[in-house]
């Protein structure tokens, strides 16, 4: 992966459109759940792809490190990405 281009947007993961890939910039917050996200491999530098949203718009499915991870938008908003 090439380093972030200057025109890359920085936003929270919940704002990334379905089908887009993004790179994690930071995981914010100090809760159990942000720790769990990091333990499951969502750490700065890793790239992920938003695959789909559930029928009622939430949760979202993300592909990271070769596996599928579902999380609510609420949780996704603690992840800052550039895309």
């Amino acid at each position, binding site marked *: 992966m090439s380093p972030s281009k200057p025109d890359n947007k920085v936003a929270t993961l919940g704002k990334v459109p379905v089908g887009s890939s993004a790179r994690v910039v930071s995981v914010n917050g100090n809760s159990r759940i942000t720790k769990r996200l*990091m333990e*499951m491999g969502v750490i700065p530098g890793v790239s992920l792809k938003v695959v789909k949203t559930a029928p009622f718009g939430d949760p979202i499915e993300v592909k990271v490190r070769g596996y599928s*991870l*579902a999380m609510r938008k609420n949780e996704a908003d603690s992840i800052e990405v550039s895309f």
Partner: protein
Amino acid sequence: MKPNGYKSQLTIALAGNPNAGKTTLFNSLTGLKQKVANYPGVTVERKHGAWKLENGHANLIDLPGLYSLDATSLDEQIARDVITGTQAGVPKPDAVIAVVDATNLERNLYLVTQLFEFDVPVVIALTMIDAFEKQKHEIDITKLSELLKAPVVAVNAKTGRGKRELIDNLSSVIERGPVVPFETNGHVDDGANAKIFARYNFISDIVQQTVKHNDRERHRFSDKIDRVLTHKFFGLLILVSILLLVFQAIFSWASLPMDLLDKGFGALGDLVKAELPHGVLADLIADGVIAGVGGVMVFLPQILLLFLFISILEDTGYLARAAFLLDKLMSRVGLHGKAFLPLMSSFACAIPGIMATRTIESRRDRFATILIAPLMSCSARLPVYTLMIAAFFAGQTVFGFLSLGAVLMLAMYSLGICVAIIVAFILKRTLLKAPPPPFVMELPPYRLPNVRTVFQNMLTRAWLFVKRAGTVILAISIILWALTYFPRQVPDPVAPGQNAEQAAAEQPSANPSDQIQHSFAGMLGHGIEPVIRPLGFDWKIGVALIASFAAREVLVSTLSIIYNVGDDDSASGKGGDASPTLISAIRDAKHDDGTPAWTPLTAVTLMVFFVLAMQCMSTVAVVRRETNSWRWTLFMIGYMTGLAWIAAFVTYQGGKLLGFV
């Protein structure tokens, strides 16, 4: 310990991520020689079994499925305690087998890097290697083992591949002792999460050196299925169809074996009465023990079927998708997406539903689900609803075309659901206060279910139900039996010329309504009359209510006894059919002052009471077991029965004010 001081038996722990194939490997190594219980004081499953080695056995401990060992959840805390040897009653493992899914290597290795820090020898069992190779990925196992400084063995539970190697490598690592292959502390300036970053850096480096992914093939099959199964429209349609199939099975397929069990226990009871000398002992065994335990065992087919379906749905990876699809709806109430299936199952029977809440990790969310599950109208309420409707609303319609009975039935089901939603809403903001449950869940790739895992899963859970619930239920059945049986009525003097034995045999059934009226249960019925009088119930309904706290459908058979209808089924306590005579007996029943004991309003009030009251000792026993707390169990009985009284009071008094009778 052998006399010479050497350890006679190895203890090996099996650790791995959920969905890594840990249970399948455990089953294949131990066969049927495994035991399931709970760790003391908590509901974390403790599973261990004997693994046959060449010379003797190893004690294999199956740890809960874990993503991490940082002790942020109860499962992790216990796994950590087992590995460090501080969990009471479990010897410190001599080595750990880390189960690692080859198709999901990076995240699976994270747990392994933590295991290295626990000063315990580790052997890595690489699962799903066939799926991995089928997708044309390549992995250099020798190099992986070199970099991890621990043996890596490719295993396949189906073919038995790698079993032998696993044993050989275990003995060599135990001899060698633990090795830590990397600097675990990370960079100081990475702050609190330095360790996490260091572990993943180590892993990324290793994976890069050992694995060649074929990105074109990666998860293609799974993604295709997923596009349909989690589709915004078809996904929901399929989910509803699957649920319908499950309930159809629980309702109808289970009815034949349930009838057989019911008849079998009935026949057994008759046999006991015929063979044993007539007296208290025979009555205790037949009407107390056999009828009581039998009354619970009839639920076994439903439980087996539900767990069969859940195991299949879980093992294929579908259950995670169902939670994904429905999480938004459930979270509005404050529950987890995973609470959906247990609650739906509770429409058939709350017992398997409550046992199915084990898939919910958060204790508070799990308890909230358990506490509202019995509000779903289960199949045992049906005989009560049907009796009331048949007696007072048969053939009536609303708007000229809707059957009043069907409307009432729908109203009762809806009442249960609405109250459940309100209770969950309140509980999640008070006693079980917690932020909306976080939803971070892996969606594992779809896999064909492993037949052995599915069946073992089903049988283990069913056995837990039989064993534990059975003991509590046995005790309560005996108490309830004794309440209706004592004190005995003085037998009539034997009429001259009549065979004494024959008279004795007929005596107890000569006038059961008399016996009940003067039994402790009858006294209790009279005793609670002031409490139930505002609901429009007299002491006779009171006796039936007391008896129905054992199981709801007992109301029907108890009413038969009280009104002396002489229903043959009544002795077994399961007279589910509303016989025409019972219906007319209820319609004709009078208070002492000559006014009718039952009105349509009484019938509706009784139905409302049955929707909400906690009247099922099997459920009580299971809730006690699943929450491991009498306090929560009593709380559930209390709030449900309290609500039932209030709702019935409002129905009856409100109905009277509105001019209904």
